C-alpha cells in the first residue's frame, strides 16, 4: 500500500502524474461537453438558426488565447498554464448556474442534467489539479487570479423561450469550445514539459 517508502519527505504526486491525470480529465470534460452540446442542439436548436447568433462570442473571449498551433507553440508555458487556469476559473460560476437552470428546461432529459452536473464537478476537480500543477512548476509564487466574469444568468431565466433556449445553446457552444482549448493546450504542455516535445 505505501506509495512513499521514503516517508513523508518529498512524498508528492509527480508533475508527470499530475499532467497525466489532468489530460485524462480535460479529455473527459470535453467529451462530455460535446455530448451535452450535441444532445441540446438536436433536441432544442434544430431550424432555429442559433449558430448564426452564436458568432457573437463567449464570455471568455476577453482572454486572448492562441488560435492555431504556431501561436500555441510560441506561447511560453507559464502563460499557457495561466490561460488554462483563467478559462477554467471563468467557468466555475456559469457551470454552477447551468446545473440549476437546466432543470427548468421543458422536458430536459436526465442525460443532459447528469452531464451538466458531472461537468461542473469535474471542472472544479481539474481546477484543483491545475493549481497543484502551477504550484509545482512555480513553487511559492502567488498565482494571478485572471479570469473572465460571466453575466449570462438573466438570459438563462428569460421568459421568452426562444431567447432563453438560445442563451443555453450559446453557453453550451462556448463550453464545448473552451473545454477543447483546455484539453488541447494541456496535451501540448504535457508533451513540452514532461516529454520534451517528443510524445
Amino acid at each position, binding site marked *: *500500500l*505505501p*506509495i*512513499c517508502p521514503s516517508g*513523508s519527505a518529498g*512524498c*508528492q*504526486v509527480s508533475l508527470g*502524474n*499530475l499532467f497525466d*491525470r489532468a489530460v*485524462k*480529465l480535460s*479529455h*473527459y470534460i470535453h*467529451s*462530455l461537453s460535446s*455530448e451535452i452540446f450535441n444532445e441540446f442542439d438536436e433536441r432544442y436548436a434544430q431550424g432555429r438558426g442559433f449558430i448564426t447568433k452564436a458568432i457573437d462570442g463567449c464570455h471568455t473571449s476577453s482572454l486572448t488565447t492562441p488560435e492555431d498551433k504556431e501561436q500555441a507553440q510560441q506561447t511560453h508555458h507559464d502563460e499557457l498554464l495561466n490561460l488554462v487556469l483563467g478559462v477554467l476559473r471563468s467557468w466555475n460560476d456559469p457551470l454552477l448556474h447551468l446545473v440549476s437552470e437546466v432543470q427548468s428546461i421543458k422536458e430536459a432529459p436526465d442525460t443532459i442534467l447528469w452531464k451538466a452536473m458531472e461537468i461542473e*464537478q469535474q471542472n472544479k*476537480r481539474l481546477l*484543483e*489539479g491545475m493549481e*497543484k500543477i502551477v*504550484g509545482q512548476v512555480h513553487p511559492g509564487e502567488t498565482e494571478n487570479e485572471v479570469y473572465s466574469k460571466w453575466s449570462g444568468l438573466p438570459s438563462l431565466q428569460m421568459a421568452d423561450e426562444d431567447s432563453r433556449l438560445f442563451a443555453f445553446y450559446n453557453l453550451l457552444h462556448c463550453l464545448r469550445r473552451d473545454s477543447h482549448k483546455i484539453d488541447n493546450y494541456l496535451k501540448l504542455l504535457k508533451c513540452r514539459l514532461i516529454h520534451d516535445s517528443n510524445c
Partner: protein
Amino acid sequence: QPPGRPELLRCRSPEKETFTCWWKPGSDGGLPTNYTLFYSKEGDRSINECPDYRTAGPNSCYFDKKHTSLWAIYNITIKATNKMGSNISEPQYVDVTYIVQPDPPVNLSLEVKKQVDGKPYLLLKWNPPPLADVKSGWLTLEYRLRLKPEDGEEWETIIVGQQTQYKLFSLNPGKKYIAQVHCKPDHGEWSEWSSENYIQIPGDIELKDV
C-alpha cells in the same frame, strides 16, 4: 491496558471518484476501544478526521467525491483509544489513482461459432463493470481471460487488451470449459475474476488438423 497498535489494511477506489480504507484493530486491552482515522493531504497542513465511518461497514472509512482528491497523496493514520491510553498506526501514504480496483466485468457470454470456412471457434463476450465510465476515456480498462477444461487443473490466461470480445480457435471437441474475465485500469489493480461461465464444446465439432 492501553489498546494495541491498529493497522491500516487496505484502501481501494472502484472508479477513481471515491475510495474506502479498512483497518485492523489491535488488541483492545480488555476495554471498550474507540477508533479514529486521521488524514492529511500533501501540501495541506490541516489534519482531518474520517468523513464517514458507516457507509463501508465496520473498521472502515469512506471518502465520497467531495473528499477524494486525485492530485494529492493522503497520509492516513488510525488511532485506537480506551480509558488506559491510545495507540497510533504507522502512517500510510495513499495516491487514489494507484488504488483503483474496478468491479469485475459483467455479462460474460460464451458461444461456439463457425467461420465462413466452417472452422469452429469459441466467441467470448463481456461488458465493462457498470460503474466504470469507459466510453469517455475517463477510465481505460484492459482485460484478461482465463479458461480451463472443467476437469483441468491449470488455467490458461489470455491477455486481451481493450477489446470486450475474443475469438478462441484452439478448441477441444467434447470438453466442458470454464471461463472468467477480469479487468484493470491503466494504473490500478486487477479486479476480482468475474463469476464463472461454462460451455460444452459439441463432440462432433470437426477439428481442423493442427
